[in-house]
């Protein structure tokens, strides 16, 4: 099936993974219908994978080595969601050249939050929108305030598709699936997050002349972070700890973003071992040779919508942003970074390009509102206008739901 959206991990145009439980796992709770994560949890309380959340706890359930079978579908995987859950993410990390998505997600009331879609790269009609991604994918619930979570047993199916020259074909694969459940702490008052903090882990390839050594004093980086703080302030999301790290100059110009051995995936894997936070990689250019002869360039890209934020070092964990001056871009990347991190936390484009003709699932984002930070077109970010950075309350809801965000108590 042709992937009409291109590299969806991006936000591409819209553009954004298998068995048993944690350690002891899988075995414990397998039943006729599927695999039950049961009570086993990798971690709970503060800080799964280095993501402490003062106003919330993160619990991680693992289904390692899940096989998707001849039709590219896993059996039903199950887990129990507590009553005080704020959100949960399902992530799937598998093989190169495979796109992973969700076939079904069914809540305790038998409501299908996700249904099988014609296009596994994006299910627009799903009650809870999901976007598949290459090699490592993640899915956030709820992705809109119109989806309510209820306590009880959830079941879901992971799907896999082999990618070849722009085509997708259902094919067996093996993936590690994790469910991260964010719960509110006693006394935090509400399951709906009101405010939070996200940490940023910067990775420097030498782009823009920024290095770990000069980052703290680099005017360009300081300006970009100031822009981002200003933008995120609208939804009570603060930028917290900033961490700096140099990585290989080999990835200064990212020359491929999809397919086997693509440079973007290799770059994102350099984030392995990081502390919790969103991994940001600054580069000079991002280009991708397309099947058919075109050479696409973009100014930023997220490893998914959302990215597997609690799994540092996967092919999808991170955002890459151009930090150099190019024709028509002054190199001020704060808004582009805010846009891509927005994707990584779970935001879709508020409105896609006319050739796609869809809008995000959020009630309060106006259609074709060019002033929204997540509008698809880059005129505003690239050219720089003060009006092009709007975020709405519903967008804040999504961002704060991501378990990488530390919620305020």
């Amino acid at each position, binding site marked *: 099936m*042709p992937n*009409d959206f*291109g*590299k969806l991990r*991006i*936000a*591409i*145009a*819209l*553009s954004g993974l298998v068995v048993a439980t944690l350690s002891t796992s899988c075995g414990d709770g397998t039943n006729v219908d599927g695999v039950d994560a049961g009570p086993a949890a990798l971690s709970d309380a503060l800080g799964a994978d280095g993501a402490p959340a003062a106003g919330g706890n993160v619990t991680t359930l693992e289904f390692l080595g899940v096989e998707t079978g001849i039709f590219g579908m896993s059996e039903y995987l199950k887990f129990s969601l507590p009553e005080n859950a704020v959100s949960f993410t399902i992530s799937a990390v598998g093989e190169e050249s495979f796109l992973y998505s969700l076939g079904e997600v069914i809540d305790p009331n038998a409501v299908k939050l996700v249904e099988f879609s014609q296009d596994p790269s994006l299910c627009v009609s799903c009650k809870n929108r999901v976007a598949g991604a290459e090699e490592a994918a993640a899915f956030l619930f709820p992705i809109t305030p119109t989806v309510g979570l209820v306590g009880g047993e959830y079941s879901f199916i992971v799907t896999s598709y082999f990618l070849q020259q*722009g085509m997708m074909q259902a094919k067996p694969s093996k993936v590690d699936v994790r469910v991260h459940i964010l719960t509110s702490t006693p006394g935090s008052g509400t399951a709906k997050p009101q405010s939070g903090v996200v940490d940023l882990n910067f990775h420097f390839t*030498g782009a823009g002349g920024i290095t770990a050594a000069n980052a703290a004093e680099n005017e360009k980086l300081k300006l970009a972070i100031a*822009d981002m703080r*200003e933008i995120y302030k609208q939804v009570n999301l603060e930028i917290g700890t900033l961490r700096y790290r140099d990585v290989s*100059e*080999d990835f200064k*110009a990212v*020359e491929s973003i999809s397919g086997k051995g693509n440079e973007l995936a290799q770059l994102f894997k350099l984030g392995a071992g990081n502390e919790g936070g969103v991994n940001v990689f600054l580069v000079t250019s991002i*280009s*991708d*040779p*397309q099947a*058919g*002869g*075109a*050479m*696409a*360039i*973009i*100014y*930023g*890209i997220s490893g998914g919508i959302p990215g597997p934020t609690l799994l540092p070092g996967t092919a999808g964990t991170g955002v890459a942003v151009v930090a150099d001056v*190019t*024709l*028509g*871009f*002054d190199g*001020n990347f*704060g*808004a*582009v970074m805010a*846009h*891509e991190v927005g*994707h990584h936390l779970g935001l879709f484009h508020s409105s*896609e*390009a*006319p*050739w796609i003709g869809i809008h995000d699932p959020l009630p309060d984002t106006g259609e074709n509102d060019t002033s929204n930070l997540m509008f*698809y*077109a*880059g*005129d505003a*970010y*690239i*050219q*720089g*206008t*003060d009006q*092009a*950075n709007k975020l709405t309350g519903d967008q804040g809801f999504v961002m704060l739901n991501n378990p990488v965000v530390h919620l305020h108590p």
Partner: protein
Amino acid sequence: MLRNTTIAILTAGCLISTAWASEPATGIRSLLAGIDTVPPKAKFIESSDDPVKALLSIVSDPSERGYLRLRAVGFLGYFHRDKRVWPGMADLVKKGHPDIRVMAAKTVAHAFGPLRPQQVIQLLKPMLSEKSLKLRQAAVFALSGIKQKGADVIAGLLQGELKRASGSYRHLLEKALKRRRGIR
């Protein structure tokens, strides 16, 4: 707050701009406007009766937003079988704004490398002698991806460069030669 950008726009090539400047390109323009979107070829065809003309028009319009022009260069690669594209791209490789030239070099190698490798090599070879590191880097990357029958002329060119290269350029050449071995 975000700042306004001062864009230094240089014309990409007089020949092209004269020929295509009048083509309206609203539909095509919307395809190029995304900062993180990659439209498929079919959408370009749906969006215009003559997508090549529209893309060339955008590339050659010095008043157009710079990043749209850059993206337009890359997406011309979809239409490499159109007779107008090769001469247009060859012109873009040779002169104009360095960023346009970089994009044209990469696109030419990707789109035309499999069809006419010798012509592409001849077109890109002079770029290896440019003073601008950015242009030399683009030429190295573009050349290293071209599949070629017979003797590996490209590897020879890159090896020659390697002998007198240093620093990051040398590093890039080593990476390109490694890539070349993977292709051959």
